[in-house]
């Protein structure tokens, strides 16, 4: 409407001007060419007026065309008419288009930026495998590639694999193999390819596989932890070491493997790993799933990302329980060894002391091997036996034995082998000068490291004087003429019993082995052994061997044994009995065990056997004493007590003999009357002492 008004206005002005001009031209009378001038002027004015009218439209058109070409420019709304409104609308549209364009440009820029920063080459191939598009980095690498066959640009490019979607191929250049991965997307006959150099990735993958294998097959427990020390990776070694599977362990803190008292130390180790990078040689206990405590040697290392931030930890643990135990054992062994060495030194010291003791002992000590050869010899032995140490060592021990005891060494060794460890007895030895001395010897076995008998040690004490005195005293005291270490034969059983009773009174231990009842033979039941085939308490089988053992087991040296041969001869033949007597003779003589009396009233013994017995045994002779036996017994009792420093009272006599006080008084009175004893006062008590006359009688007896 406004355009129309403008047109009408312009038309009116031109018409008015034409009217004025027409009047003036007619008045002046100008040539007709002036009409041509008017025409030209009108034409030109019209041209530009039209141009002015059409200007906004054409400007809009141009702007549209520019917009279509991509040049976004606004038009200035020069009027407020329809053209102005159209221009405003157009400008709004352009603004929107500019926004869209900017958005697109930004997207494109972003896309280009992504493409430029893309780690790889992006290019598109047509159906003839010619490059139709390539990113800048591809062009920078290979020049202007668009339109070229891809095989000419990328050597060995396998175009036949394009349909696979994704493939890899290797480029060999300058002796270096580069693995290239190509991802292909086909759209409307165009292959869009993204090629990337994956050599580094492949190398890293191989390395990762390598590390994974190490991780999986390491016998050490390798545990990867996050920054909160929670387990994220748990290898097979850890499973074997701790018994927990990966499913059980992953997600738990490392603390769950340790005793509570070590948690604090664990936290300290993590702090150190963060500060120092790693902590080595952490020897700490860990708890297995089955509750067993093991010792591990742990290395804790912190893991850092590319910015240097700690992202986790690796704990490598090695089970050193066995090693620690071995170390402990070794330590214990060492301590034991040191202890043993100390003991050995002490023993050595003791041995030296003992050797010194042995060497300086008042007893003669020497040792003999199983062959009977002397292997050691102390100083006292030199004095006692006369042989020097050099002479004695290597000498046969039998050289020390008198003729009648030549088999003693063999006998002792046999006894030791039979289990008699502590053999002690009185015997005789031959000195170098040929004299025989009485000795008390104690024999001990010497065992080698295998426990086998390698010899014997003999401690010998010279008791010649003592023995002589004893024998003298015993001879005076005994009612019968018997001597220790001898074996006697009695053909009268009562005599034999009397001898035994007399010996018992003189302090001997009596032992009667007989078939006769004890009450019949008048002996105490305690000293009696019944010969019987029935095995009962207080019975003995009539077997020579058992009898021998029974007699041999008697303790000490003062044994008075009565062996009734009658029943034995019934059960066994004479040879066996005779052999028993021979063996007992040896034992009694060698070991000086006491006095053995064999007795037989049997008719079973013939002349020959009797003679044989007499050859082996002595006969029993009675001693001549003037005073009655019971009085003599009291004197002997008092004498024997006095000998050991005691002075018995009348009450002691009563108790010893089992007689009444009056009887005892009477018997003591008889001795007082004869001047053989005297009563002396010891405080309030009256005690008895043998006088010199009484001693004389005892000596004579």
């Amino acid at each position, binding site marked *: 409407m406004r355009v129309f008004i403008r047109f009408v206005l312009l038309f009116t002005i031109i018409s008015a001007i034409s009217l*004025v*001009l027409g*009047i*003036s*031209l007619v*008045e*002046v009378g*100008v040539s007709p*060419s*002036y009409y*041509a*001038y*008017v025409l*030209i*002027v009108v034409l*030109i*004015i019209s*041209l*530009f*007026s*039209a*141009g*002015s009218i*059409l*200007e906004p439209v*054409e*400007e809009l058109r141009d702007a549209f065309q520019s917009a279509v070409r991509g040049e976004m420019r606004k038009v200035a709304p020069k009027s407020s008419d329809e053209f102005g409104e159209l221009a405003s609308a157009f400008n709004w549209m352009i603004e929107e288009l500019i926004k869209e364009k900017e958005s697109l440009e930004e997207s494109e820029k972003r896309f280009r930026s992504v493409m430029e920063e893309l780690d790889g080459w992006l290019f598109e191939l047509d159906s003839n495998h010619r490059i139709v598009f390539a990113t800048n980095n591809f062009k920078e690498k290979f020049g202007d590639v668009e339109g070229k066959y891809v095989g000419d640009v990328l050597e060995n490019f396998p175009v036949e694999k394009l349909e696979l979607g994704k493939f890899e191929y290797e480029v060999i250049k300058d002796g270096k193999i580069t693995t290239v991965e190509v991802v292909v997307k086909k759209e409307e006959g165009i292959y869009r390819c993204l090629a990337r150099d994956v050599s580094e990735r492949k190398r890293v993958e191989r390395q990762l596989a390598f590390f994974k294998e190490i991780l999986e097959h390491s016998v050490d427990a390798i545990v990867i932890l996050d920054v909160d020390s929670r387990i994220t990776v748990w290898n097979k070694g850890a499973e074997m070491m701790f018994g927990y599977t990966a499913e059980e362990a992953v997600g738990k803190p490392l603390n769950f493997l340790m005793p509570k008292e070590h948690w604090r130390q664990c936290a300290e180790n993590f702090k150190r790993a963060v500060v120092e990078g790693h902590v080595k040689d952490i020897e700490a206990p860990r708890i297995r799933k089955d509750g067993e405590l093991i010792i591990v040697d742990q290395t804790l290392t912190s893991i850092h990302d590319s910015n240097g931030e700690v992202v986790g930890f690796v704990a490598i643990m090695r089970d050193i329980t066995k090693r620690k135990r071995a170390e402990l054992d070794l330590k214990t062994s060492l301590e034991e060894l040191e202890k043993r060495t100390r003991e050995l030194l002490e023993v050595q010291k003791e041995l030296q002391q003992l050797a010194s003791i042995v060497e300086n002992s008042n007893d003669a000590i020497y040792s003999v091997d199983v062959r009977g050869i002397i292997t050691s010899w102390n100083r006292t032995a030199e004095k006692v036996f006369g042989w020097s140490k050099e002479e004695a060592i290597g000498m046969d021990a039998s050289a020390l034995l008198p003729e009648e005891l030549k088999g003693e060494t063999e006998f002792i060794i046999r006894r030791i082998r039979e289990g008699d460890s502590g053999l002690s007895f009185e015997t005789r030895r031959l000195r170098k000068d040929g004299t025989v001395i009485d000795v008390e010897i104690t024999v001990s076995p010497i065992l080698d490291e295998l426990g086998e008998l390698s010899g014997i040690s003999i401690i010998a004490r010279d008791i010649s004087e003592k023995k002589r005195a004893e024998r003298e005293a015993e001879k005076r005291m005994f009612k019968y003429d018997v001597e220790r270490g001898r074996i006697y034969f009695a053909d009268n059983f009562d005599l034999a019993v009397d001898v035994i009773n007399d010996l018992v009174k003189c302090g001997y231990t009596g032992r009667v082995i007989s078939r006769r009842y004890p009450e019949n033979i008048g002996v105490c039941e305690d000293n009696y052994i019944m010969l019987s085939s029935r095995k009962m308490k207080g019975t003995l089988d009539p077997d020579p061997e058992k009898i021998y053992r029974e007699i041999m087991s008697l303790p000490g040296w003062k044994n008075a044994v009565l062996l009734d041969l009658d029943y034995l001869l019934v059960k066994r033949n004479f040879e066996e009995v005779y052999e028993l007597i021979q063996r007992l003779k040896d034992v009694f003589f060698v070991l000086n065990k006491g006095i053995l009396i064999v007795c037989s009233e049997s008719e079973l013994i013939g002349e020959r056997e009797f003679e044989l017995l007499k050859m082996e045994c002595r006969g029993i002779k009675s001693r001549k004493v003037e005073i009655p036996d019971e009085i003599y017994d009291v004197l002997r009792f008092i004498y024997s007590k006095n000998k050991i420093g005691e002075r018995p009272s009348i009450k002691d006599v009563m108790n010893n003999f089992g007689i009444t006080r009056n009887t005892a008084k009477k018997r003591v009175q008889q001795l007082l009357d004869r001047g053989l004893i005297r009563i002396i006062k010891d405080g309030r008590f009256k005690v008895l002492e043998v006088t010199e006359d009484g001693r004389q009688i005892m000596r004579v007896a």
Partner: protein
Amino acid sequence: MRETVKLIEVARELPVSRKDVQMFLLLLLCGVLAYLISLADPALEPLFLALAFGIIAGNLQKDEEKRRMAEKFIPVLLPVGITLYGVNINIPYLGEFHPEVVAVTLISASLIFLSVFWISSRLKLSNQMSLLLACGSGICGVSAIAIISPLIKPKKEEFSAAIMIITAVGLTGAIIYPSIAHFTDMSPEKFAVLSGATLHQTGIVKISSQLFGVEEKALAIKGIRIAMIALIVLVLSILYSESRFYVPWYIVSFLGVALFSSTYLPSGIVQSLRPLATVMFATTLAAIGYTVSLGKVQRVGVRPLVAAYAGWIVGVVFIMLAIGSGVV
């Protein structure tokens, strides 16, 4: 036979093709036709007519290839045309005029120049367009525009529009000046001053003054304005030169030819050279017109027209006041 072949090959190697020749002939035809029309009616400027013909021919054919061909001629034809056009410039001897007339003419020309330039600037026309319109209005119309255009390098459509607008304004003056003289009872001498000082083209001044028998005087006054082209060209060439104090050779040659033809060159030679110079320059404008889109020319709008008319009216008012006050 062999010779013919050779000739053809030689012809092919030449930079000028047959189409080029055809185009040149077409443009030359336009120039010659414009010249011939201008001979019939001096008010119709041959340069304007050649431009109009070129525009008509170009916009009728609308062949981009041909336009490119025509465009090739411009760099060759324009300097030559400008140089030769120097013979059309006749630098007058100022001593022949009354000083008041010279002063009024110079002031009027300057006033028109400045008015057009200022109004154009106010109407937000481009600097080049403003200068073209100012020079065309204040100095010597179409020829001034054609001469300064290589210096200030306007758009072709602006150049074409400026020529057309100046032609329109000049013809308007030719139409209405007799009416003014008639209504104001102006003496022929004063009319000569009015037409010589304010009308744009020489031909229009001639036609207008013929009515009152003061052709010679009017053209002489017009000659003062025409002489200003030399000064303006110098100033503009310095202002618009890419390096300081550089003046294109064809401007120098134009000024030289103008000075030479005004002073030493025999009048006969000058007169004989003038048709050639006019035809050459007309042909150049035909070439420019051929390459211009009428739509683009049209798009320039009425604002340059308003500026040119307004500046002209300022000059007319000034002269009328000067005449009325008895200065002239």
